[in-house]
């Protein structure tokens, strides 16, 4: 151990990047629920992908063994992170790359901007990357007069639509084919791409249009920015997993490649990739293998970029690592299977989560990266779940998302209590419950009184009566939930009526 052992970890600072929305989940979700087009689009897409994933996972006889290998590999990697990061740096450097370290989003953005400026280029092509979305790199480059062209089809749709991503894998999942055609029609001609006036909304035709639109940009680009799916500490090898070939274009044709990667993306050895290259494609796009996976180690003379920079990003990750329960969130390989099975995500879509990381994994990752303060917007995310456990079942590295959600809820209640000298409503309710439940007579009285709640019940479709809203301060609870109406008779009362005498 070094002498720096006492150095505190730091959460991702606010104000830069896309880890936090402007309003809490319940508020944003209510608006999303009112958008029937959105719900239809997301419902259709997630249904498709759930079926595909289930089919290709069932083909693999050792799927559970692979998941266990993935889980233990990630846990072992985290425990050895300092030495593995140093090994990666040494290997990349030995093979002609340059490694940079960034404490937070602002520092990473400054590094990349400086590197692009040093090449003299005023534009970069980008492979889809969650890390650069997270730090708001495009906005930082734009502020420096550098155009950043997103080249992944879904990212292109988001960028042209002046929109924000709503899914880890398919950022434009909230758009259907005809909306995409409208975005292309509106935006592409202004950027110099002539469109066929008879262009239909057939996905094949839309994909061809994107190919034509980006072709010249790819062939002229001198600088590319990518993320990374995996980095091998043992060899310094980086890997990007993709489908369209836009990744290959960016990783192969430009003179300079800048890769921004979270420090948790490491795997210890080359052969460890055999686990993740099986888990990732089947979990994410429901394919046996994605069309293209690129791997490169430093600089190869005569092949690909002759200048390579790797930016290693903290931005709150070490704070997550410091939580013994929550650190499992760093095992995520960004497959998005948990989004696709989540009943909450399926109904609200990704924007309601505010952060670039939506869905169940986002609900545990975003608030840990930014910090549960007792008063921040991301405090609402650990509650954006019914704790049904479907996310845990499909996670290729077995992240126990439901348990972490519960842990974060507990931490949030504590943080709230710490943040305010006035007791929170939860604390008051628990104190009241303690008083009521510590005396049998008081408890009986309270149960009888609760019958008054039947007056608040309203019939729902199917004949079931539910309470839609309680008066303040209990309205905070019912703002995002229905309550069953209390029964006409308590258990004790039916026992006494039927059996005579107390239970």
């Amino acid at each position, binding site marked *: *151990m070094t002498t720096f*052992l*006492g*150095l*505190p970890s*730091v959460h991702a600072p606010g104000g830069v990047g896309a880890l936090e929305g402007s309003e809490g989940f319940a508020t944003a979700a209510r608006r999303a629920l009112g958008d029937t087009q959105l719900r239809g689009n997301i419902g*259709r*897409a997630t249904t*498709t992908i759930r079926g*595909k994933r289930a089919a290709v996972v069932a083909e693999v*006889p*050792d799927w559970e063994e*692979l998941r*266990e*290998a993935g889980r233990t590999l990630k*846990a*072992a990697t*985290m*425990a050895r992170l*300092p030495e593995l990061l140093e090994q990666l740096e040494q290997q990349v450097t030995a093979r002609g790359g340059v490694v940079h*370290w960034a404490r937070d989003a602002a520092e990473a953005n400054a590094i990349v901007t400086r590197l692009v400026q040093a090449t003299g280029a005023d534009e970069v092509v980008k492979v889809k990357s969650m890390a650069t979305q997270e730090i708001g790199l495009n906005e930082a480059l734009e502020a420096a007069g550098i155009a950043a062209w997103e080249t992944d*089809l879904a990212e292109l*749709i988001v960028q042209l639509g002046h929109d924000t991503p709503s899914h880890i894998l*398919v950022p*434009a*999942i909230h758009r*259907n*084919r005809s909306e995409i055609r409208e975005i292309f029609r509106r935006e592409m001609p202004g950027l110099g791409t002539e469109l066929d006036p008879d262009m239909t909304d057939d*996905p*094949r035709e839309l*994909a*061809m249009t994107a*190919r034509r639109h980006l072709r010249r940009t790819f*062939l002229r680009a001198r600088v590319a920015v990518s993320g990374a799916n995996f980095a091998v500490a*043992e060899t310094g090898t980086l890997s990007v997993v993709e*489908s*369209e*070939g*836009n990744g*290959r274009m960016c*990783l*192969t*044709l430009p003179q300079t490649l800048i890769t921004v990667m979270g420090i948790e993306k490491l795997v210890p050895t*080359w*052969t460890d990739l*055999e686990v993740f*290259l*099986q888990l990732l494609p089947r979990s994410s*796009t429901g394919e*046996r*293998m994605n*069309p*293209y*996976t*690129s*791997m490169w180690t430093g600089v*190869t003379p005569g*092949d690909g970029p002759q200048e390579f920079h790797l930016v*290693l990003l*903290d931005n709150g990750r070490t704070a997550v690592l410091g939580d013994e329960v929550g650190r499992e969130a760093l095992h995520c390989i960004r497959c998005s299977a948990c989004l696709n099975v989540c009943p909450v995500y399926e109904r609200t879509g990704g924007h309601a989560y505010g952060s670039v990381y939506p869905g169940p994994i986002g609900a545990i990752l975003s608030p840990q990266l930014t910090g549960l303060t007792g008063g921040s917007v991301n405090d609402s995310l650990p509650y954006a779940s019914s704790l049904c456990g479907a996310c845990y079942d499909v996670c290729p590295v077995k992240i126990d998302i439901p348990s972490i959600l519960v842990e974060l809820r507990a931490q949030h209640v504590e943080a709230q209590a710490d943040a305010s000298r006035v007791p929170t409503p939860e604390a008051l309710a628990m104190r009241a419950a303690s008083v009521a439940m510590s005396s049998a007579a008081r408890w009986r009285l309270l149960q009888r009184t609760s019958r008054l709640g039947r007056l608040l019940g309203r019939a729902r479709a199917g004949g079931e009566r539910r309470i839609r809203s309680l008066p303040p301060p209990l309205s905070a609870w019912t703002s995002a939930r229905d309550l069953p109406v209390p029964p006409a008779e308590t258990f004790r009362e039916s026992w006494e009526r039927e059996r005579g005498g107390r239970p």
Partner: protein
Amino acid sequence: MSLSLDARTEVLARVRSALGPEPVVPEVSRGYRTTGDHPPGSPELLELLADRLRDYKAGVSSCTADEVTTTVAALLDRLAPGGRLLVPPALPEGWTSGRDVLRDDGSTTVDVLDTVAGVLTACSVAVAETGTIVLDAGPDQGRRALSLVPDLHVCVVRAEQVVHTVPEALRRLDPRRPQTWISGPSATSDIELNRVEGVHGPRTLEVVLVVG
């Protein structure tokens, strides 16, 4: 104090601090398959590879070593009649005999690569279970741009290069070489999560399996 530290020192110190003085490194579970059910190059694997390739809309032909030239010629006559063919520096001469080829010497510009009708390469290894061919920039495969910019990629796979599983493939590859793992033609799932072939990479992938 922390303000004066450089980012590298500080991030590493934060990581060590987060892990505590003696982090426990769990044992990695290795219960998964690392070898396939069939030896490399066996008929079962060739059949599986062909099936997986076709499933992702790649074309597949089989031939003997003596028939590579005629098989390749027939494919090119059908898919790129009269067009110029790009080949890597050390592709076997016999595979393209009598054809107008552009043999890359490392100096072919991207704009020229964009004008050829197709590229013909060998491969390094193929994974039957996933329908994947791996190029590692060997002299009969060339630098990565060659199999990327042209719209047609014809890839010759020798039977003994075909393994059953992903772990077997990784163990045959040298991580220091740049690699491209290819599973079918360029595709996207970005519109309503349906797979559509044909975006930025070659829109047509033809695999020639050489048996015996």
